[in-house]
C-alpha cells in the first residue's frame, strides 16, 4: 500500500511539476466569467459567487483567471470576447427579446457556453420556469435533457458521480448539446450559494442538509464545468480512459 502511495505521489509530482508559473501577467488571456444581465427578476442573487469560484479555480488548477466581475447584456458587442457566460437568478424574469435570442443562439451554436444557476433553492421555481421558456425559445427542436453521469463534465478535473450545490433540489444537471458539444448547462441546486465567500474568507450561505463535503463537491462541480468548457471531451481521449475507469471503479465519493 505504501509503495502504491509512493508511486501515486511520484506520479502526482510529475503531473504538478515543481514550479509555479503563474503571475507573469497578461490578463487579456485569463479566464473571465461574465454574468448576463437581464430584465425582470434578480440577475445577481449571489454577488460573490463567481469571484469565489474563480478564486477556487485559480487555487486548484493551472487556469489563470480574472477575478474582476464582468456583467453584460446579451446584445453587448463584447459578448463574443467571452466564450463562457453565466446566468443566475432566484425569480422569474422577462422573456428575452427575439434579437437577443438570435444572438444567444449564434453564441452557443458557434462555440460559446452558458451556465445557468437557479439560486432559489426551490423545485419548479419562477426562475426555472423562465429559464425553460427561454431555452425552449432558443432551441425549440432541442429540449433540455438530463446530463448523464458519464459526461465529461463529471471527469474533466475531479471524478464526480453526484451533483451537489447549496440545496440539492435536483440530483442532476440538465443541458443542451449541439453536434456532440454541450453548450448550455442548468443547475437547480444553487451552486452560487455554495461557492460564495466573503472577503474575509467566510462562507456566505450555509449548505442545506449537508456540510463541508457537500460544499466541496459543489465547488468541484463548478471547477469541472469550467474545465469542460475549456477542454471539451479531452478526458474521453483514449489515453485517459484506462486510468480514469480504474479510479472510478475503486472510488465512489458521496
Amino acid at each position, binding site marked *: 500500500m505504501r509503495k502504491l502511495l509512493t508511486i*501515486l505521489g511520484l*506520479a*502526482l509530482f*510529475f*503531473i*504538478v*511539476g*515543481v*514550479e*509555479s*508559473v*503563474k503571475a*507573469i*501577467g*497578461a*490578463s*487579456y*488571456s485569463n*479566464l473571465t466569467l461574465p454574468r448576463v444581465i437581464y430584465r425582470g427578476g434578480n440577475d445577481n442573487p449571489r454577488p460573490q459567487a463567481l469571484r469565489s469560484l474563480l478564486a477556487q479555480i485559480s*487555487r*486548484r*488548477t*493551472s*487556469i*489563470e483567471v480574472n477575478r474582476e466581475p464582468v456583467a453584460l447584456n446579451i446584445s453587448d*458587442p463584447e*459578448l*463574443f*470576447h467571452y*466564450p463562457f457566460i453565466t446566468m443566475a437568478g432566484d425569480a422569474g424574469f422577462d422573456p428575452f427579446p427575439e434579437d437577443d435570442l438570435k444572438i444567444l443562439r*449564434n*453564441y452557443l451554436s*458557434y*462555440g*460559446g457556453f452558458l451556465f445557468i444557476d437557479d439560486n432559489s433553492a426551490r423545485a419548479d421555481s419562477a426562475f426555472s420556469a423562465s429559464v425553460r421558456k427561454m431555452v425552449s425559445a432558443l432551441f425549440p427542436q432541442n429540449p433540455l435533457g438530463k446530463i448523464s453521469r458519464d459526461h465529461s463534465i463529471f*471527469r*474533466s*478535473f*475531479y*471524478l464526480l458521480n453526484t451533483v451537489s450545490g447549496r440545496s440539492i433540489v435536483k440530483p442532476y444537471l440538465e443541458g443542451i448539446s449541439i453536434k456532440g458539444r454541450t453548450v448550455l448547462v442548468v443547475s437547480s441546486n444553487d451552486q452560487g450559494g455554495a461557492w460564495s465567500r466573503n472577503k474575509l474568507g467566510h462562507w456566505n450561505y450555509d449548505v442545506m442538509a449537508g456540510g463541508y463535503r457537500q460544499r*466541496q463537491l459543489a465547488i*468541484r462541480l463548478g471547477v469541472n464545468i469550467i*474545465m469542460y*468548457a*475549456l*477542454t*471539451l*471531451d*479531452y*478526458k474521453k*481521449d483514449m*489515453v*485517459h480512459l484506462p*486510468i*480514469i475507469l480504474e*479510479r472510478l471503479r*475503486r*472510488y465512489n*465519493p458521496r
Partner: protein
Amino acid sequence: MNGLAKLLGVDPEEYNHWQLHWLPDDPVVVLTVLAIVIPLALWFFWTSLNRVGSRSRKLLLFALRLGAFTLLLLVLLKPELEFRKSQSLKNSIAVLLDNSKSLSIKTKIDESSRIDLIKKALEANATYFKNLEKDFNVDYYFFSDDIEKVAVGAVKNVYRPYRPYTDLTQVFDALVERYPGQSLQGIFLFSDGADLTQESGEISRNLVERLKELGSPVHTLQAGSNAGFKDLAVEAVAASDFGFVQQPLRVSLTVFASSMGNRNIPLVLKEGNHFLVSKIIEVREDTKRFEVELEFTPQNAGKRIYTLSLPKFAGEFIHTNNEKEFEINVVRDRIRVLHLNGRPSWDSRYLREVLAHNPKVDLLSFFILRSLGDDVEAPISELSLIPFPSNLLFDDYLSSFDLIIFQNFKYDPFIDKKYLGNIRKYIKNGGAFLMIGGELSFQGGGYSRTPIEEILPVSFRDNPRPLVDKVFYPVLKKEFSRHPILRLEKDLELNQDAWRSLPPLQGINMGLVPDENAHVLIGYAREKESAIPILVTGNFGSGRTALLATDSVWNWNFRNVGSGGSGRYFQRFWNNVIDWLIAEPETRRLQLESDKERYREGEQALIKFKLLQKNYQPAVDMTVQLTLTPIKTESAMETELKTDEQGEGIFPFLPDGEGFYTARIQTDLEGDSLTEEIMFSVLKDTAEFEKPLVNETLLKKISEITGGRHHLLNGSDDLSAYRIANPDVQVKSHSRSFSLWDNWWAYSLVMGFLVMDWYLRRKSGLS
C-alpha cells in the same frame, strides 16, 4: 415451280429452290383462337341453314362460307413464297498456332523450344495441309488471348512467341463469331495449353460452352511436356494497392517449384536495396506450389516498389520469374498530431476543436491542468489527472508523430531536457514542429539556448516582458501572398479580402529575431520600427518548423462569429498550417508528377513539374535536372529542362521496355537544393512465365469434349491419320419473297365469297 415463278414475274433460271413460309407473329395464339372460333362459327352457320329447303343450296351456302373462312385463315397465317438460290459451300479448317511467350520455353537445355516443335510439325506435315486445301478452306491463325489470321506462306517467317497472355475462352469465342453455321469442320490447336485463366487440372464452364457452341472437333497438338522441367517462380502475388505508413501490410504469394528436389529456399522482400523481410520456403519434390504470407511495415509515404526474390539455380529454364515486383501506394492513414497545452485556454480549446474534428488528424493532446502550487483539496484518487508519459512520447513513440505542437507549454518539469534533443533529431529527420505563443512559450517556457531554439526559425532575445498585451492587426508580407499557409481563398484578391475581414489579435510574444533563412509570413508593423514577427516558418534538416507569436488566434473563430463572420477561415488557416508543416505534396516548392501511374509497353509518359520560389511565386526560366532511371538497370537518362512563365514544365518520355521507372528532378534555387522523386510503371508482359507449365489436362479435355484427338508433338509427327469430315453444306446466296396474303387478290376473293353468300341467303329467304 417454273409456272408459279413466271406467274409472279420471276426468272426460273435465277433460283434453284422455293419455299413457303408461314409468318404469324404469335402462331400459338392465332392458331388456338382460330381452332376455337372457326368450328364454332361453322356449326352456328350450319344450324342457321335449317330453314333452307334445298340440300344443294344448303351445301353451296355452307361451301361459300367455308371458303371465306379458309381464305381468312390464310390471310391470318401470312403465307410468303420464297424463291432461293442455294449453293454448296467449301468447308473450312482452322489451324491455331499459339504465339504466347510461354512457347519460347524449352523443357530441357538440349531440347527444342515448344514453338520449334510446332514449326517442325507444320513443316513435316506441309503436304497433309496442302492436300486439305483441295477440299477445304484451310485458315491459319496465331492466337494468345485473341486470334490473328495469317497467310499460310507467312507462317514460317512471322511465327514467334511474343504475346503476353493466353486465354482460350476468348480464342474460341472469336472463332464462333468468325464461322457462323456449319462450315468449320475441324480445328488443329497447336499449343502448350498454358492458359492463365484456367485453374490447374480443370476446364472452365465458359470454355466448355464455347467449345460446344463451336460444334467442331478440336485436335490438340501439345507442344512440350512437364517431364524434367526445372523452375522456381514467384507466382500470384496478392497485395493491397495501397497501404498506410507505420501500419503492417500483408502480402500473399505462391511459390512454384518444379524439379527442385527437397531443399530450403529463402524468399526475400526488398524495397530497392533495403531488406525488409525474408522467409524460408521448405520446398519438397512432391509439391509444386507453396502458399506464403509475408508481413512488413512501410515507413515512408508515396508510391513504393517492392521486390520479391528467390535465388536463381543452375539448370532453371526461366530466371525472370524468380523475381517479381509489385507497387503499393503508401499513404498516411491519418496525420498523427501530438498537442501539448501548458494550461487550458480559449486559444487551445478552439485549436483542439479544429484538430479533433479534422478527419485526417489522429490527435493525442495533453493539457497541464494543475501546477505544483495548486491545491486541489482532494486525494489523487478523486482526480481525473493522469501522469504525463514523457518518456513514451519523446523517446519510444516520437517518430510515430507527424507533427508536434507546443501551445503555451513550458517543458520543465514535464519533459526532461534531454528529450528536447530527441525533438531536434526528430525534426532533422523530417518531423514537424509548431510552437504557439503565450506566456509559457519561447523565453517564458525556458526554451532559450535549448534545442528548441535551435530548430525554430528565430532566436530568442532576453526580454523582461516576453508577452505584451497589445491589440493589433496582423500584416501579411506581400512576397508571401502565394504561400500555402496564407491561402484562405484560392483567388489572390479574395484572399486579401478574407484576411482583411478577420478581427484583430491580442498579445504578442516579443524578443523573437528571425533567422536568416526564416520566412516571416505575418508580422506586426509598428511605426519607425521593423516588423515584429508573428507567423514565421522555417526548415531544419529535412523537417519543417513554424511559430505563432500570439495566443489569440481564436479571435478569428469565435470573435469573428460575433462580428457577423464565421470560423471558416480559422479552420482553413490551421489546416493550411498543418498541411505545410507535414509537407503535403501541394505545399512543396518542387512538384513532380506523371500523367499516369501505369503505362503500356510502347506508350509515351508525360512527366510534369513545377518549381516555386521560397515565397511560392513561380520560378521562371529556371533549369532543372530530370533523371529517368529504370529500376532494374540503373542506366539513367538525364536531361536539362527549363521552367516556363508559370514555373512549370513538361517532358514526354518513351520508356524503354517494361518495368518500374524512377523520375527524379533536382535543382538549386535560392540556396536550397530541391529534389523530388516519383515512380511509375510500364506494364509487364511476363505473366506467361508465372505459370510456365504445359497444361496437358486442359488440352486433353478440349479434345475429349469436342470429339477431337490429342497428340504430344515429338519433332517427327505424322498427322496424316487425321480425317476431317466434309459434308455438303448448302448456303443461300440470294432470294426473293412474295407475300401471298397482303394483296388485292386475297381480299377480293374473301369479299367475293361473302357477297355471293349474302346474295344466296337473300334469295333463300334468309336475313
